């Protein structure tokens, strides 16, 4: 009985701290606005074309109709409704970017734990390799890899995820370095626990906060990169309603001096989504880093 009481007290302390953090998040304006924006796009990603005013793939005879008429955001060169295509376009990005982020976070966490925990030559050589990879812009690596491996959503997810791993591992490694000399880690080692146990059961739960922040930041970058790659033609293929693709298909019309609605609205969709994710990341950072 006496042994259980402190354990219960400790647990309730943890849950109080958690509730407090949650309350701080709800009070954070940046976080709430971010959640509302991202929630809107997640909603459209889930319902897809079933709720859009028109079928996003339906071609009509009213080609390049101006916005604010019968078609709220106008139509494109094939007479397809821009509003429906923009709303349905959330699906592709919101499938690829989160999966790539999860892959990058998982791999990066393992690499970061190992390099931070063992240090020495493993750490040194992996750090050098990471430096070399980071000397190349993400989009250069992605373009090269996708051309080599072929264009598919799977490749897109794997390539972005793998490139994220070293970047995530840096953050995780720094967090592990701050923890590895603390008493609870020493105690676990003295108990004779194996290295994987110490890394994943002892250290990992204590560095969740920086990993969560890193994950939201990465998600923003993933959307950024997916949009760029589909714009370059390495993502979803026509006639899929995808924002990057819509811009790629229609931006040549801009040179003529009109027909701006076919590119501006998908562009604004990308902009609001990444800004929303970044607002969430910023809100989380402010609350969790305290």
């Amino acid at each position, binding site marked *: 009985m006496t042994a259980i009481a402190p354990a219960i007290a400790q647990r309730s302390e943890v849950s109080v701290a958690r509730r407090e953090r949650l309350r701080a998040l709800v009070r954070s304006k*940046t976080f709430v606005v971010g959640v509302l924006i991202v929630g809107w796009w997640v909603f459209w990603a889930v319902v897809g074309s079933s709720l859009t005013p028109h079928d996003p793939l339906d071609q009509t005879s009213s080609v390049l109709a101006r916005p604010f008429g019968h078609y709220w955001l106008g139509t494109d060169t094939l007479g397809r409704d821009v509003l429906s295509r923009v709303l349905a376009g959330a699906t592709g990005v919101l499938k690829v970017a989160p999966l790539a982020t999860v892959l990058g976070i998982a791999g990066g966490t393992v690499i970061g734990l190992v390099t931070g925990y063992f240090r020495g030559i493993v750490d040194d050589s992996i750090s*050098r390799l990471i430096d070399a990879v980071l000397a190349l812009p993400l989009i250069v690596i992605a373009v090269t890899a996708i051309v*080599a491996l072929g264009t598919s959503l799977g490749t897109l997810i794997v390539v972005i995820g793998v490139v994220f791993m070293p970047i995530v591992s840096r953050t995780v490694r720094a967090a592990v370095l701050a923890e590895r000399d603390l008493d609870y880690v020493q105690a676990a080692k003295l108990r004779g626990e194996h290295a994987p146990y110490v890394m994943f059961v002892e250290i990992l739960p204590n560095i969740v906060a920086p990993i969560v922040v890193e994950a939201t930041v990465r998600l923003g970058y993933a959307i950024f990169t997916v949009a760029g790659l589909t714009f370059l033609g390495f993502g979803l293929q026509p006639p899929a309603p995808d924002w990057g693709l819509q811009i790629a298909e229609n931006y040549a019309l801009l040179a003529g001096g009109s027909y701006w609605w076919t590119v501006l609205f998908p562009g604004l969709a990308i902009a609001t989504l990444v800004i929303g994710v970044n607002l969430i990341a910023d809100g989380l950072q402010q609350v969790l880093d305290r």
Partner: protein
Amino acid sequence: MGRFLLKRFGLAIVTLVLLSIIAFAAAQLLPGNVGRNVLGGFATQQSVDLFNHQHGVYGPVYSQYGRWIGHLLHGNLGTSLEYNVPVSGLIGPALRNSFKLALLAFILCIPVSIVGGVIAALRQGRPTDRIITVSGLSLTAVPEFVTAIVLIVVFGVALKWLPVTAQAPPGSSVFVQVKYLLLPALALTMVLFGYIARMARAGTIEALDADYTRTAVLKGLSKRTVLRKHVLRNALLPTIAVVATQVGYLIGGLIVIEKLFNYPGIGLRIYTAAQNKDFTMLETGVLIVGIVYLVATLIADLLYSLLNPRIRYGAAE
């Protein structure tokens, strides 16, 4: 200082070697036989073999790598598989074009973002600070081509102030060239603005709280002198480092922006090389991008250590 330099150069060379291996490996991943890809399905096996031999694509992978590096060290970048002319002849002008664009972007961006960051720091917590911080954060998050589209719609289509293509007619004056490059450079700048302003803001806030600033105020120096001689000098140090690391992001942005504006720079070269499986061009392009980034970070580190004696002495211990 000598030892610091030596160590820094050594690390840069190790990174460079690794980078060359990555660039080479990436090109190796391209599917299919090189000669067969270029010459097509109807070429005889003999001519395919001859082509591969001429382009150094024979034997085990490590000896191919060795030959490639050997040629590189002699200044021979190889022959473009797509155009069948030396890569250097294509990369050179492309680099010059990209350099012009990047330079204009930096000239536009650095003063504005540093001033923005310092103003935000001086008005910390007030509406001005929130506006600068949030708009910087948002601009950084939005992909360059999206910013570019918005800029084109506003300044090119609606207001008709600026041309919507990037390349000035051949033989135009510097002024006209700048006018054509303004839209793509602005699009690149928006992404950098947030980063640099954020660093300048953080650095200034830290310097404002520092003991030496309090001492300077207490000994009766004017607000201006404190700001100029004590706060800004210390605040802008980390900003310099950030500016250099952004060179990498800038090059990444160049691919998309150059494609959007159809501007013949290094980004467009890498993009077309990747699309056409022109692997000599691709590996050279990737390597050059990496080298530009390495040199930029090296310069940043040196500048940083020149301005900050603590790093110099710390490394020499």
